[in-house]
């Protein structure tokens, strides 16, 4: 279970400051898949970064399965939290081979010792896991990741994030940099892999279909707060158009034609 209480994050700018999260509270039961929507600058990425530890909040607590982790640096949360970035180049390392990624992912959050990283067992495992993706990557575990396409890299990043079953998975627009068909492929993988393992997940998306379609709960954020929280029958009954309308109502400085918010 993930419990966020009173999270606050302000960024200072040249002119004043901006509040990215203000008195943010959220409780996610174990195994729940939550999708998050909201306009640009609503604070979605900041929320995920705060939970992952790459952003430190001024106030508030983050409790994951009974452990308070808000004071730990990012690399000391990695044992429990894993993430996939929007940019395929950030989530994978160009210079490393697929098998080397697998070897490191297996040690996520653990002591990286002085043993050979890519053993036969790792390569074997690697092939087995890659076969799940159905992209043909299992044929080439020793390829450098820079030789892969963006979609392949992102699918790999997703697979790696799920190794050793993290307690929490964070996905920040992880299909936004991909072309529509590849995005669909990665999203389908997300659905099948994550739902199968029932991992507690926060997924930010700008695609309203995905937001309502995947997972069990949808949050809408604006100005660093949750303005709508939908689950169960209410969520199932909601159509894309209704959600867009609701969004316009909820948003204080509502701009109906906010193209940046949602695509369906």
């Amino acid at each position, binding site marked *: 279970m993930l419990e966020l209480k009173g999270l606050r994050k302000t960024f200072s700018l040249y002119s004043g400051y901006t509040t990215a999260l203000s008195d943010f509270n959220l409780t996610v039961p174990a195994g729940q898949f939550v999708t998050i929507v909201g306009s640009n600058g609503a604070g979605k990425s900041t929320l995920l970064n705060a939970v992952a530890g790459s952003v430190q909040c001024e106030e508030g607590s983050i409790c994951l399965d009974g452990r308070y982790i808000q004071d730990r640096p990012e690399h000391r949360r990695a044992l429990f939290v894993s993430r996939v*970035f929007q940019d395929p180049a950030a*989530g994978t390392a160009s210079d490393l081979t697929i098998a080397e990624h697998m070897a490191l992912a297996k040690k*996520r959050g653990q002591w*990286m010792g002085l043993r050979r990283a890519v053993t036969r067992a790792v390569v074997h495992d690697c092939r087995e896991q890659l076969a799940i993706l159905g992209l043909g990557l299992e044929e080439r575990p020793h390829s450098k990741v820079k030789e892969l396409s963006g979609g392949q890299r992102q699918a790999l990043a997703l697979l790696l994030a799920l190794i050793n079953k993290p307690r929490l998975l964070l996905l920040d627009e992880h299909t936004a940099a991909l072309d529509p068909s590849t995005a669909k492929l990665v999203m389908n993988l997300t659905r099948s892999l994550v739902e199968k393992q029932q991992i507690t997940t926060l997924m930010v998306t700008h695609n309203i279909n995905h937001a309502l379609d995947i997972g069990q709960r949808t949050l809408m954020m604006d100005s660093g707060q949750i303005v709508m929280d939908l689950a169960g029958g209410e969520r199932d009954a909601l159509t894309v158009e209704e959600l867009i309308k609701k969004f316009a109502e909820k948003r204080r400085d509502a701009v109906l034609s906010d193209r940046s918010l949602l695509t369906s």
Partner: protein
Amino acid sequence: MVWIPPLEQGLAYGLMALGVYIAFRILHTPDLTVDGSFPLGAAVAASMLMGGSPPLLTIAVAFLAGVLAGMVTGTLSARLGIAPLLSGIIVMTALYSVNLRIMGRPNIPLLGQTTLFRQLEGLGVERMWTALIVFLPVTLGVGLFLYWLLNTHWGTALRASGSSAPMANALGIDIGVQHTLGIALSNGLTAMSGALVAQHNGFADVNLGVGIVITGLASVILGEALLNGGIAKQITGVLLGSIAYRSMVFVGLRLGFPASDLRLATAALVVAALVLSKYSLRPKSLRRPTVEPTRAAAAQERPGAEEREVKHHA
């Protein structure tokens, strides 16, 4: 035998080239500390030899001194947030004074001292071979050690920190610590190289390091032109590149180019190599395909994908 001097030099400076390879290619950090840690190694070795220390010990201590210098640079950039390039320049500048302090004067001649090479001569080895007998096992040994290290979990994590900091961080790797240790290792090897070169040349000088990082980079780039691929190939490439670079210098000097033009020529070489590697001269059809064949396979499952791409390119 005319091939011996460039080979000796290539191997001795090869350790420094490996250091530059770690900083520039593995950590993707333009570290200029090297210009100070090379003479640091020379200074440490020379003053220890003057004090009567055994030559092998001086090389080990030179390595440690270089590690320390690298730690300072790494800490400046990783902990105090100073840009890596600037951190290197700061430490390089500081090292100039440190080196003068260690030596007590700008230049120490080692002609009368028991260097590693003198020791071997004492054992009855012909003078011509002494340098190779020292450099071959040392440099190849360091190369093998690096190959092993970079393939461990720790070494892979080091390469990950250099290649993608966000990913390394998300995997639980402390990139600050890794960066610092990487720069430390790089400068340790450089200082070791300085210690060997000083003993070989028979003197240590505070100005030994000026521009050395560019000669290291030249070796790395030449090496990449000769060999590229996995870690083993990269390390071998760097050493071959170092030998190639020293051979070019040797030939240039033999042809009568003045030694004072060496740095200018090296700078030009590096620029040419960097530009050439960006605008490959090979025709497009021979270049490695960046679009993977699997993309076509994937497209079969998803009709329409190929079309869209075609449109995109058009």
